[in-house]
């Protein structure tokens, strides 16, 4: 909050800088702005940027670096008697100190030494904040004064400002790349730590998943096994059910909308499908757990089938409903982009509309439809809330849709929700699962986009 206030101060200074720069340029031109190189507002903007940009950069850097330095200083200054021995203890103690400082509950009774460390932490924090505030304001003022001194009749303010803005534009467009790099790096680093404890092939091909690791070494059955095959199988089962629902319904709706429906019907049906796409997944999850699962269980019992209350079927069907609009809108686009001449040729040979669709349009649109299905599959694999709320937690290796299965995303959520230390194989396993998830969906997307693009080029 205080840093936020500081940001407001810097922005205020920038605004003042704008006014100062503008006024100075008008003064330099002695009132006749035509003899200036640029418009007065560019001089103002130059001063504003000179004031704000370095200060905000410094603020951001400081905010990132300060916690590291403060923590290091606090831990180095600890009483030697309670100095942590290993990395786990170190991070636990640090968390305690941090929680104490912000007034939260802590995991154990605070000893006087810890309290002293906490006070030191707090005082360092506040010293750090005030130093930062002073430094940032100083930089902002220095920048303002310097930039203002640059303003003169012949100063090419517009070019400088435009170059700065262009660099900013480039930086912004790089953020997308940085995000991907960040995702890949964070997933890979944590996964490598996981694979240092659990062999890679055991994770990928093991058929037993029970991520509970023991607190004491001699506990029974607490070794923790990380064979992810049941999760992959469960994910595929639910995805398959979802596609069995969404595939036919989505494709047939798309065909009807593209080939049969009159504009009036389209105007109603298309927004309706879009609403289906806009409903948050947590709502679908609630619907699946509260309405669909008991319904399926009731039906199953009435015909003598034993259905688990968190059956894969319920989660899959609801996920299918969620995916219908993806399949239908993508397929709709593809079918619409099949050239009219193909249809006319088919009608001319005497084919009915449905014959034309089945024998001419679908084959012509097939690559695009395949692409649409692949995108839908990737969506289903990565979907989280529906399965978290409606699918099970136990890792069963089964193909029976009436039993409870678990999925990759469910396990990621269950492993990471709640407080836990960050170094156990259990939490790191979530990142390994995330890595698999990321690369599988990425692969599906790349293939799907390539298929769709290739197809479009053929007819354009």
């Amino acid at each position, binding site marked *: *909050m205080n840093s936020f206030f500081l940001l407001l101060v810097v922005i205020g200074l920038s605004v003042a800088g704008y006014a100062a720069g503008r006024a100075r340029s008008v003064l330099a031109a002695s009132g006749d702005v035509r003899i200036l190189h640029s418009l007065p507002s560019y001089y103002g903007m130059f001063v504003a940027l000179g004031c704000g940009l370095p200060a905000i950069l410094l603020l951001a850097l400081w905010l990132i670096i300060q916690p*590291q330095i403060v923590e290091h200083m606090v831990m180095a200054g600890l009483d030697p008697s309670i100095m942590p021995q290993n990395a786990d203890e170190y991070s636990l103690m640090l968390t305690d100190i941090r929680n104490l400082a*912000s007034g939260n509950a802590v995991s154990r009774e605070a000893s006087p030494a810890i309290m002293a460390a906490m006070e030191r932490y707090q005082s360092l924090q506040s010293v750090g904040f005030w130093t930062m505030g002073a430094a940032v304001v100083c930089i902002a003022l220095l920048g303002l004064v310097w930039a203002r001194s640059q303003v003169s009749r012949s100063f090419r303010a*517009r070019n400088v400002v*435009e170059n700065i*803005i*262009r660099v900013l*534009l*480039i930086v*912004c*467009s790089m*953020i*997308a790349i940085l*995000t*991907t790099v*960040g*995702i890949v790096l*964070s*997933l890979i*680093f944590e996964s490598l730590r996981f694979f240092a404890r659990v062999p890679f092939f055991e994770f990928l091909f093991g058929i037993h998943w029970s991520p509970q690791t023991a607190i004491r070494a001699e506990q029974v059955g607490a070794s923790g096994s990380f064979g992810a095959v049941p999760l992959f199988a469960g994910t595929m089962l639910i995805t398959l059910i979802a596609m069995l629902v969404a595939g036919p*319904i989505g494709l*047939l*709706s798309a065909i*009807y*909308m593209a080939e*049969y429906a009159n504009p009036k019907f389209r105007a109603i*049906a298309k927004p*309706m499908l879009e609403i*289906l796409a*806009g*409903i*948050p*997944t*947590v*709502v*679908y999850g609630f*619907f699946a757990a*509260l309405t669909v699962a008991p319904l399926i269980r009731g039906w199953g019992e009435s015909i003598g089938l034993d259905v688990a209350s968190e059956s894969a079927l319920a989660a899959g069907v609801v996920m299918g*409903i969620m995916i*219908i609009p993806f399949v*239908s809108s993508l397929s709709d686009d593809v079918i619409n982009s099949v050239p009219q001449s193909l249809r006319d040729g088919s009608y001319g040979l005497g084919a*009915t509309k*449905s*014959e034309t669709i*089945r024998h001419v349009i679908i084959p012509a649109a097939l690559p695009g439809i395949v692409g649409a299905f692949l995108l839908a599959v990737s*969506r289903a*694999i*990565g979907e*989280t*809330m529906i399965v*978290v709320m409606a699918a099970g937690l136990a890792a069963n290796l089964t193909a029976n849709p009436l039993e409870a299965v678990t999925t990759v*995303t469910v396990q990621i*959520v269950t492993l*990471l*929700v709640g407080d836990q230390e960050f170094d156990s194989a259990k939490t790191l396993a979530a990142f390994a699962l*995330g890595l698999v*998830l*990321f690369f599988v*969906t990425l692969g599906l997307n790349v293939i799907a*986009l390539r298929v769709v693009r290739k197809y479009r080029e053929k007819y354009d």
Partner: protein
Amino acid sequence: MTDAIMNSKPDTAEIRRPSPGGERLKKRYAAERRFRLYGLCSILAAGLMLVFLVGSIVGTGWSAFLQTYVKLSITFDAEYLDPAGTGDPAQLQNADYGGLMKKNLRDNFPEVTGRSDKRKLYNFVSPNAGYVLRDMVIADPALVGKTLDLWVKASDDIDMLTKGYVDRTEAEDNRRVSNAELAWYDKLDNADRVETRFNTDFFVNADSREPEEAGILGAVTGSLLTLLITLLLSFPVGVMAAIYLEEFAPKNRWTDLIEVNINNLAAVPSIVFGLLGLAMFLNFFGFPRSAPLVGGMVLALMTLPTIIIAARSALKAVPPSIREAALGLGASPLQVVTHHVLPLAMPGILTGTIIGMAQALGETAPLLMIGMIAFIVDIPGGFTDPATVLPVQIYLWADSPERAFVERTSAAIMVLLAFLIFMNFVAVLLRRKFERRW
């Protein structure tokens, strides 16, 4: 040669001639009608599912907007509030209002004697009813010693009973309301001392363990703070990235890479962004857990591709003649964009941004990863306070076993859907009003 053709019968395809009665044609037309019907049925199926989904949520949730109150005669007994008769505000502040409430319940139902029956009786009204009495006494100390007929908020079990969710025909052990409680309730009901009112607390309270006290204001505030951060980060960055890619970037491998990257990022599962937020923002940079600041940053990264793609198509839709005319008059490339292209593309960009924000508002999974799932009874006051958001609140309530939380979950979903519908409505309106076809 003609003989050769005449004699060589087609191997596979037989020559079909129109059948005399046109049966084949009838068959083909029947197939046509069937196919058409399949299409219509699948759209109707999708529609029915939507209706079923919304219907089931409205059906279970509408009653959460009502809350049961029971009328009890309450004596503000000086013995509990101010035994010394000092009238000291501090004494009134800290008096035993819970005990006062219990005493009044016993007085209202003198027939209750057993220990376990008494305990049930104390559960008849909301555990927070004592605080309401306290607020009344502090507002008006003259109440001490008086007796009033007051409407007191009933507990969630009684609330469920009023709303008809408790099956009286079921065996006593299988329902949450015992026969004794039913008798007390009926006694009050027959005396017209039960009433349902509009549940204002649902809109002005934060989360609570007691269903009748739980509200959505905390989650809504958290959502607003989070979305504000998301908007502040993703809108400028997204628009600037789109401007660069659409207007300035040279066509080379590097910009191709950025483009492919953005398209792929748009399809990365949201939970992966949560993992990124956990590993980067929380563990590496040490930002606070559960804070709207971090949630907003994660959601900003997630909505960035949506905004960039929407902004690019809006910029692309501005005809080149406008750019050329501005360039011809001596504007610099940046002036062309900021003075002419961007204002013309703004409605499209805003529409895309609102749709991206609506997505972010409904997103749950990445926020679970960064700890916005804590049970928080305070309304967050800043960007670094622990907070939760509306979808996560829905998830938390959906996990609670009490029947009263089921209807509150549905009600919270209705509020969430109302926000989403409003945002999409604004987006459609913007598009209708400002869209220009060149």
